[in-house]
């Protein structure tokens, strides 16, 4: 679904309010819509007060891990005499996820404002926005907006005329899913191969250029100006009874669904209502078969599990999966699950940085086995091998790419075992699909 589009009445548009409104892209347009009031306010507050307000709001990281943002910011020790850095993770590469793209395309100043507030709150004078290289339009829009913000003195050596320095630089990635992992992103920014680093040390101690660094997702930072303008209590109020998951969340919806696109709802929204009312349900004549609700790295849900899910951090966990990045991938009954799981494994094999043996070998090995099964050449023993490999690939590597490859394999075999068995016993794909070689 393209833009502009009208929000569904059951959405709560906060971040997405101006999606599709080209007038919101310019600095003047942004100011007319209330922009940069929060930054002005923030620069008159103490960093500690900002951190506390964000802590109080309950805002958690929207990139996938869901770590409380205010707590993360509080790890940055003021007055340590070292340069601090803020990195914005705009490497949005998780299959199924395309929300940060829309924030940057339509409301670039929302990100700059949130990033500037974040930088000030953690004692950083420099912020780097790392945008994946394929996002050509977001890169153009963000570069233009940063230029405009410098020219207007919103950011720079004398941000908003307060004498405080806040530099913001856009850094273009060059094609690597792994650079969305925070320490890989820092290596990439430093001009290195995007290999994740062993932790500890954590970024707040030794991050970008070896200095204390905070890294936040685009959507997380875009929420910050709203919290400062309207207060932590207002933000916290947007939830359906779970104080651990607050605010609104952008969910990207794709795959076999009537109305794909981005939807913004309060935390705790019922997933069933979301899928059938907001997203319009399945395509005509089709039924949903499987849902991956949080980007391709989280366990697959059956339709029954999805329909019983409450859309917040704890709600997805209760139904055997995770909220992740909020990328909802929908497969209907025309789709071969073995083919899709094989394709996802191939994605991770392609994107493995190859540092860790379990990941380098495991992603490639599971891909070969899955593709063999899909072509009708598998054996029942292959299923046990896959599960054993997935076990070896989980919790044993520097980063979680390996775990991410294992998650859909384990949940797929567990929940759609009959499809795997039908490929093996029938020696062909019963759906007539063939995994790309």
């Amino acid at each position, binding site marked *: 679904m393209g833009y502009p589009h009208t929000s569904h009445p059951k959405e709560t548009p906060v971040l997405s309010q101006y999606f599709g409104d080209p007038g919101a892209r310019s600095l003047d347009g942004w100011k007319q819509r209330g922009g940069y009031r929060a930054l002005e306010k923030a620069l008159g507050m103490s960093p500690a007060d900002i951190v506390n307000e964000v802590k109080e709001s309950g805002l958690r990281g929207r990139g996938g891990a869901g770590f409380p943002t205010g707590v993360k910011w509080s790890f940055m020790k003021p007055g340590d005499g070292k340069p601090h850095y803020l990195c914005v993770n705009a490497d949005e590469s998780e299959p199924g996820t395309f929300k940060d793209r829309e924030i940057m395309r339509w409301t670039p100043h929302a990100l700059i404002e949130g990033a500037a507030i974040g930088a000030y709150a953690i004692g950083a004078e420099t912020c780097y926005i790392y945008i994946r290289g394929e996002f050509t339009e977001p890169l153009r829009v963000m570069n233009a907006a940063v230029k405009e913000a410098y020219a207007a003195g919103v950011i720079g050596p004398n941000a908003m005329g307060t004498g405080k320095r806040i530099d913001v630089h856009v850094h273009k990635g060059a094609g690597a899913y792994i650079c969305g992992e925070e320490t890989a992103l820092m290596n990439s920014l430093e001009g290195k191969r995007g290999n994740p680093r062993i932790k500890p040390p954590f970024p707040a101690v030794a991050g970008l250029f070896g200095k204390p660094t905070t890294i936040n997702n685009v959507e997380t930072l875009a929420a910050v100006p709203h919290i400062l303008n309207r207060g932590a209590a207002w933000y916290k109020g947007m939830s359906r009874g779970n104080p651990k998951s607050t605010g609104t969340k952008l969910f990207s919806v794709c795959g076999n669904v009537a109305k794909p696109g981005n939807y913004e709802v309060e935390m705790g929204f019922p997933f069933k209502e979301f899928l059938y009312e907001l997203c319009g349900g399945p395509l005509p004549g089709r039924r949903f078969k499987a849902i991956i609700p949080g980007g391709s790295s989280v366990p697959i849900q059956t339709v029954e599990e999805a329909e019983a899910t409450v859309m917040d951090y704890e709600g997805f966990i209760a139904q055997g999966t995770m909220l992740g990045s909020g990328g909802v991938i929908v497969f209907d009954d025309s789709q071969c699950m073995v083919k899709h799981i094989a*394709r996802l494994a191939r994605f991770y094999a392609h994107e493995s940085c190859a540092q860790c043996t379990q990941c380098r070998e495991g992603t490639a090995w599971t891909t070969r086995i899955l593709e063999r099964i899909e072509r009708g050449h598998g054996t029942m023993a292959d299923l046990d091998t896959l599960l054993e490999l997935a076990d070896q690939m989980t919790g044993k590597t520097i980063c979680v790419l390996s775990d991410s490859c294992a998650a859909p394999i384990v949940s797929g075999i567990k929940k759609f075992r009959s499809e795997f068995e039908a490929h093996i016993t029938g020696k062909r794909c019963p759906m007539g699909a063939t995994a790309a070689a």
Partner: protein
Amino acid sequence: MGGGHAPGDTSHGDRGHAHHDAPYEPVFVGAVKDELTEILGRYPTKMAALLPALWIVQRERGWVSDSAMAEVAQLLDLTPAYVKGVVTFYTMYHQHPVGKYFVQVCTTSPCGACGAEKVVEAFLKHTGCGELGATSPDGRYTVIEVECLGACGFATPVMINEEFIESVTADKVPELLTQLP
């Protein structure tokens, strides 16, 4: 949309196989050198300007040759081997010349569920490339499959050079290609 030079821009030296004997013409001279100087000011280390510098090379020459890597290495106080190690890590730097139009079709699962394979087939057929990664005999096209372009709700997204095109279906491919200059 638009902007930047097409990968197939032949207005500079250093591209294609015909230039093996031609002397290397540095990329970073004049305004391009100034651009790099401005970029270096954003970072506390020279090394951090490596990805931006390689992007400039690709914009100016269409690909990143070994000679260009050596030039970048010298400018940033790195070794050519180090630069090559970085170039080869990332998928977007072309280590060989590509067609005038570099076509990337997303085929990761969400797009795969929406017919991306047929879009790939259509591009291969209508460009005359024949196979993935190959350049068409007229030098006009190179088609590759790419992993998730981050626009899954607009399946199938396709990139042609710097152009990002949403919701491409196999039947739209011939018209898309005719529209290219």
